[in-house]
């Protein structure tokens, strides 16, 4: 449950200094693309905040999003986020099970009404009254609506929750939909990816804690700090693209020389995410650096884009069309921007089908 003390008071008692807060704040400012001078305000904001109650719902998903955010390594600055939140319900991670787990969810909702954050991974099946995925005797739809009713904000993590993802791929047998197709009266932040980059999830929660508001979102409801640029724009192989030097297969000389992977299906030009800058596994690498093209997993309908190994120019539909849309779309701050984003997101989803 949420602690009545501020995070500053709570962590000072445990010997965590304000210098550590400031270091965390510098890290958060950097990954959120805020100026370094914002670190002081972030540190103060976190110190004055109460421990944030988080209810995590998992629906039609593979648990990859949870694996991503709880990646195992030595305790470090990146893990401080787990001291800042109270994860009151997560049916994979919590000790309680059965009715005790559901009682914990209800208690957190009652105690923190209007203040708790709901994190959702997985899509929600609507076909045949939603019977294709149930938890504790109720459908995912019922659990989502019940839990979000008194939430402060909703964070949809992973491409299943944000856009329907793999469960919604053609022919979408369960009638899977995204969270924003159901919840329309709360601010929703979409953090897409299969799975999302851990820093995109923790950075967004830290921003909410520090400033008590929604970060600036793109036209798909995603934080611009992480989804503001195409992977292609920040790819270290971009100079080869500019020179027309492409790998033609995964074992040719071009591939060995690290040339651009566009012609073997890389979706980097139409994929907006921070893989090329934040990278994965603590900054070790990202798919393109490891020799494989981007799958476009953070974009709507990525599973139905015509094949991972077909170049964009020959893939089904016209993906470059929605790349253009991504570039020109604007965004605003707060709940209003979330609503605008939702409308645009729905438009993009329809065009992509």
């Amino acid at each position: 449950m949420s602690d009545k003390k501020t995070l500053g008071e709570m962590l000072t008692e445990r010997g965590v200094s304000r210098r550590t807060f400031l270091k965390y704040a510098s890290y958060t400012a950097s990954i959120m693309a805020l100026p370094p001078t914002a670190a002081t305000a972030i540190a103060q904001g976190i110190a004055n905040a109460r421990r944030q109650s988080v209810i995590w719902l998992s629906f039609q998903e593979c648990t990859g999003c949870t694996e991503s955010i709880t990646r195992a390594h030595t305790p470090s600055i990146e893990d401080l986020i787990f001291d800042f939140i109270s994860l009151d319900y997560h049916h994979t991670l919590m000790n309680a099970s059965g009715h005790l787990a559901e009682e914990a969810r209800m208690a957190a909702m009652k105690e923190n009404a209007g203040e708790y954050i709901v994190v959702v991974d997985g899509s929600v099946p609507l076909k045949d009254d939603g019977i294709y995925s149930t938890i504790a005797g109720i459908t995912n739809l019922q659990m989502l609506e019940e839990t979000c009713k008194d939430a402060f904000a909703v964070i949809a993590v992973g491409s299943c929750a944000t856009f329907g993802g793999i469960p919604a791929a053609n022919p979408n047998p369960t009638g899977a939909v995204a969270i924003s197709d159901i919840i329309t009266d709360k601010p929703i932040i979409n953090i897409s990816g299969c799975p999302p980059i851990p820093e995109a999830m923790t950075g967004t929660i830290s921003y909410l804690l520090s400033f008590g508001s929604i970060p600036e979102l793109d036209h798909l409801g995603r934080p611009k700090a992480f989804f503001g640029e195409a992977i292609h724009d920040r790819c270290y192989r971009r100079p080869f693209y500019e020179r027309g030097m492409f790998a033609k297969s995964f074992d040719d000389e071009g591939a060995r020389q690290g040339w651009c992977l566009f012609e073997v299906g890389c979706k980097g030009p139409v994929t907006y995410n921070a893989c090329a800058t934040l990278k994965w596994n603590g900054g070790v690498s990202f798919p393109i650096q490891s020799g494989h093209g981007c799958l476009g997993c953070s974009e709507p309908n990525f599973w139905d884009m015509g094949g991972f190994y077909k170049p964009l120019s020959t893939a089904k539909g016209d993906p470059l069309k929605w790349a253009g849309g991504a570039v020109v779309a604007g965004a605003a701050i707060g709940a209003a921007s979330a609503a605008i984003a939702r409308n645009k997101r729905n438009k993009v989803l329809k065009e992509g089908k």
Partner: protein
Amino acid sequence: MPRDSAAPCLSERATGMALSVLTEILQMLEALAESGASGSIDLRSLPLSDADRAELEEALGRGEVRAEMELAGESEVWETTYPGVWWIRHCGAGGKIATEEISVCRIPEILITHPVDIEAAAARLKKELETTHV
């Protein structure tokens, strides 16, 4: 910083970014001298190659002050050979650089003890004296 193993030739090439950063530092340093206004540059946000980073670090050098900190991972701060220009490096998991910035100021905030920590220190020492030296 880790090198791009797939294409080492790219990361070894200087792009001229170091000179751009040095020019920005000069402007900040002049502002600090004239009005006391401090400023910072987030190095992680810039497309610096390994060669650019090395060029920048060599150009600024290391001056009189250096501090190491243990703050949920290692951190290091040093004043460059240009007084008022500080290099701040915070490491995260596995000792990898989590964030790195140039701060142009009299003294970086991370080195100043926060009043809350001073109060907590006084309370802790008082308790220690009361329980072990009565």
